[in-house]
Structures are given as structure tokens and as C-alpha cells.
């Protein structure tokens, strides 16, 4: 296991920013942490990086405390507030980072060139950072996070200052890093971004980790079934087994949510058995947004679940 937390808790007075969070990441995963504003995402990420101290519990990376300088050499971090030393040139900043990671002097130029190439800033390295746009600064901050080929990369809102092209570039970069075997911890508000890049998900609400598991589990387990009918009489469904799944019901249409797609044939069969005349059936897996809203709005206050 690359990273694990055990009952990780952070309290500020009476407020529990993170509440007994147990989380684990295996090597090679791209883990997306989702939650509404103020849910405790940034506090959790900061605790995993040794920037905020937990009130109780512990976080381990490779079995060692996260604030250990040797462990920090294997981590990359792009903060949400990516403020850089604007009086330095991009090259000088990356050289400073390279030295801090212990890269040999002769290795530094190649590492810097590669990182700049990956974030699309090659050729701009001699300019002062203060001359960079916000988006370029975010790209540079990302170059600083991947310069040393970290085993574990924390990306906190990595596309917040980027335009759509920049966002696509970052998604492509995440794919490249994933192929290299880098484990990525992605904290993002953009659900589409998470859906496209992550292999695993965690949902956090009010400081509690309410669900975690593989992306495919979350998306497969939840389907929206739309059935078109004609002159439907609701009395036909008296005592129907699947009544509790109904979201919308009219004379022409019935919409249901089903947790498992294997239930769909049985639902259709039971409707036919009840005498309903079916003209069209449309089953689609629900997107991450629906899963997110469902989890946060309806399950945020219940016990945590595992997908």
C-alpha cells in the first residue's frame, strides 16, 4: 500500500474539518477526491502532506510518517493556491526545486527541460515568473511537482486557472504520468475531469469520507431506466415489486433508478406481466454528477459506504 490514513481527524474548536478518515491508495491508482465546498478536502490533502497536523489518527506514505524529508522526496504537490516566487525565472525556480529533491547537478538541466516540455512551457524558461499569466504559472507549478518523477502526486484543483485547451493538456499529462506508474491523488471540483481521468474515487462530506471505491463501481451500479408506454393505467402496478425505484410516473412514461443493471430485464418482464404496453426502453448509466449529488445530498449524513 502506497498511502494510508487511519482515523485521521482534524478539529478546529468544535468544528470537525476531517472526521476519522480511513483511506488507502495502491500504487498506480488515479484517485479522485470529491466533495462540496467546505467538506474538508483541502484539509485532508494538507494533512497528507504534513502541512496541517492531525488532531488524532495518522497518515502514512510507504509506511512512514508524511513529514519525513525522505518521504517528501517521493511526493509531488500542486497546491490550489499555487503562488510562486515571482522574482525568479522559471528555470531558477525549477533548479531550486531540483536541488531540494537532491537531483545531481548534471541531471538537473534534463529534468527541468523534460518537466517544461510536459507542461508546455519549453522556450519560456528564462522569463521572470512575474511576466507569466495565471495559467502559465499553474503549468509551472505543475512542472515543479513532477520534476523529480514522484511516486505519489497530489494535484489540488490542477486546472483552476486553465482554459479548455489547458485542461485537456493536463488530462493528457495525467495519462502520461499514470502510464509511468505515478500514483495520483486528484482533488477537483470538475466532475467531468475526474470522470475522465480517475480510476478510483472517494466522496467526502462534512469532514467524513462517505464512500470510496473504483470508478467503474460507482458508474455501473447506478442506471436510469426510462420506459415509454401508451394509455398507462397506474392501477396496473398495484403491488408491483419495483415501485420504490420509481422517480417519475405519468400516463406515457415511467422513470426508475436501478442500482444494478442486471435488474433491468426483470423490471421489464414484470411490467409486461402486469399488462403494461411498452413501446420504448432507454437505459443509461448515470454520470458522476448524479452519483455525486445523490451521495452528497442523500447519504452525506448517513453511515459511510464502500462501493
Amino acid at each position: 500500500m502506497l498511502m494510508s490514513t487511519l482515523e485521521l481527524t482534524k478539529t478546529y474548536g468544535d468544528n470537525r474539518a476531517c472526521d476519522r478518515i480511513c483511506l488507502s491508495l495502491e500504487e498506480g491508482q488515479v484517485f479522485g477526491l470529491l466533495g462540496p465546498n467546505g467538506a474538508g478536502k483541502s484539509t485532508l490533502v494538507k494533512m497528507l502532506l504534513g502541512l496541517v497536523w492531525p488532531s488524532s489518527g495518522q497518515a502514512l506514505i510507504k509506511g512512514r510518517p508524511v513529514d519525513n524529508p525522505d518521504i517528501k522526496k517521493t511526493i509531488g504537490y500542486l497546491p490550489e493556491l499555487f503562488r510562486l516566487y515571482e522574482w525568479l525565472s522559471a528555470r531558477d525556480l525549477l533548479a531550486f526545486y531540483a536541488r531540494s529533491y537532491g537531483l545531481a547537478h548534471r541531471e538537473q538541466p534534463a529534468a527541468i527541460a523534460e518537466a517544461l516540455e510536459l507542461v508546455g512551457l519549453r522556450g519560456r524558461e528564462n522569463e521572470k515568473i512575474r511576466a507569466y499569466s495565471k495559467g502559465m504559472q499553474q503549468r509551472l507549478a505543475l512542472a515543479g511537482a513532477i520534476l523529480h518523477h514522484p511516486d505519489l502526486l497530489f494535484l489540488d484543483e490542477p486546472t483552476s486557472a486553465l482554459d479548455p485547451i489547458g485542461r485537456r493538456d493536463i488530462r493528457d499529462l495525467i495519462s502520461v504520468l499514470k502510464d509511468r506508474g505515478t500514483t495520483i491523488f486528484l482533488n477537483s471540483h470538475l466532475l467531468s475531469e475526474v470522470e475522465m481521468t480517475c480510476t478510483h474515487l472517494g466522496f467526502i462530506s462534512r469532514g467524513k469520507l462517505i464512500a470510496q471505491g473504483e470508478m467503474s463501481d460507482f458508474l455501473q451500479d447506478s442506471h436510469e431506466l426510462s420506459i415509454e408506454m401508451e394509455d398507462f393505467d397506474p392501477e396496473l402496478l398495484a403491488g408491483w415489486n419495483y415501485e420504490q425505484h420509481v422517480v417519475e410516473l405519468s400516463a406515457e412514461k415511467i422513470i426508475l433508478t436501478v442500482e444494478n443493471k442486471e435488474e433491468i430485464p426483470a423490471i421489464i418482464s414484470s411490467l409486461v406481466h402486469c399488462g403494461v404496453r411498452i413501446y420504448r426502453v432507454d437505459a443509461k448509466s448515470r454520470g458522476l454528477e448524479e452519483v455525486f449529488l445523490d451521495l452528497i445530498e442523500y447519504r452525506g449524513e448517513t453511515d459511510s459506504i464502500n462501493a
Partner: protein
Amino acid sequence: MLNIVRLTLKEIMNKHILYLGLVFSIVFLAVYALGLHNIAEAQMLSGNQFWFRNQAGYQLLTLGWYVSTFLVGALAVMMGAGSISREIESGTILSLASRPFSRSDILMGKFMAYSMVTALYSGIMAAAITTLASHYFQLMINPRAMITGILIFMLFPMVLLAIAHLASVITTTLTAGIVSFMLFIIAITGGFMEQIGAVLGNRSLVNTGVVASLIMPCDAIYRMAVKKAVGMLGTGYITDFGPFGVASAPSIWMLVYALAYTFIIIFLAMHYFNKRDL
């Protein structure tokens, strides 16, 4: 830690305020030199003897050192007060503290870089003032004594920097600057009281000064440095120089106290920085 020292030195070199400070320091030295020149010339014309010339020379030298404590103090407070807090306020600390540095390395690296710059500045200012005074008044300066005095004077900003770093770890840049500067003013005022008390023979004034030196020992460092710098010969001329003189000289234990004070304050700064959330 050396990486942090290097980065901080580079940052200092990129600050316009450093060059502005250097320009004003040169202006100060030019004004001081002009004043010394005119006073020395007036004394020559009036035919003052050796004793009067030496008295004016040593007292003007002491006055020059005294004024330079304000320049050095202001520089140390300005640099130290934002050392950590400015990084926290701007958010750059997140990138820095997540790299393979311990927080103690970050704090000590910055403290060392600022100490090097301010100590160098103090040494250059003290040496320049001494050279000018001894040139215009033909003072017999013992080089060894002078170097000892200058080396002690170079410790002066370190005490202030330590306090400024502690405040910078605990609070905002503005508050850290105000707190550090107020402590500096308390030390200066205490030093005033102590010297005036010594001249007047008023024990309670002297004790007030000693207490102020225990709270912030930078003024005591200045008094000890200037006493060492002027040597045995010069001490006689500056003893009665009121608040600027050394009528009440601090003991060697005050120097030991100042060093221990600096270490303890920096240790406390590290302790609080290691504990705080970023």
C-alpha cells in the same frame, strides 16, 4: 538548509528596498563625513589641543555608531518580520514546506541568510564610521580592539532578527514588525535611562536600563561593542557622553546572556513553526 540560505540571499538581492537602503546609507555616511570635516576644521582653526580633539572625535564616532543602530535595527526588523509570515500570507509556504525540507531547516535557513546580510551591513557601517572619524580627528585606534568591537556589533541585528522571526512565526507581518520595533525602542529607551542614571548616580534609572536589556539585549550589545572598539584610550572620552556614551558598561555576562537569548528565541520560533498548521 543551504538551499534555503541561497534562495533567501537571492530574494534579498532582488528586493528594491535593499538598494534603496544602500543608497540612503551612503547618503548618511556622506552627511556624517561632511559634518566631521567641518567640525574638525573648526577645531583646527580654534587651536584646540589633543585632548579636545580626541574627545570630539571619539564622541562623534560613538554618535555615528549610535545612529547606525537605528539603520541596522530597521533593516533587521523589516527583513525578519516577514520572513515566515509573508510566505504564509502569500501561500508560497505550501510549495516550500511540501518539499523535502524540515520546517526547522526553512526557519534556520532564512534566519542565517538575514543574519549574514545584516551582520555584513552592520560591520561595513561600523567600519566606515570608524574610518571616517579616525581620519578627520586623527584618532589612535587600536585595530585589534576595533575589530573586536565591530564583531560584537555584528551580533546586534541577530538579536532583533531572532525576535522578528519568532513574531513572524506566530503572527502577521505587520504585527511582527510592530512588536519587534517596539521591543527595539524599549531596548534603546532602557539604554538611555541606564547611561543617564550612571552619570547622575541614580541607581533606579540604571536598574530600569538593566531590566530593559534583559527584555531585549540589543542596546547592551551596542554599548559593549562601542566600548571595545574605542579601546582603553577612547573609553575615557565617551564615559560622560550621556545617553550615547558608556558610563554604565555591560559586563561580559550580558554578551553571554544576549547570545543565549538569541538561541532560546530561535529555538522557540522553531518550536512554534513546527507545531503550527500551514
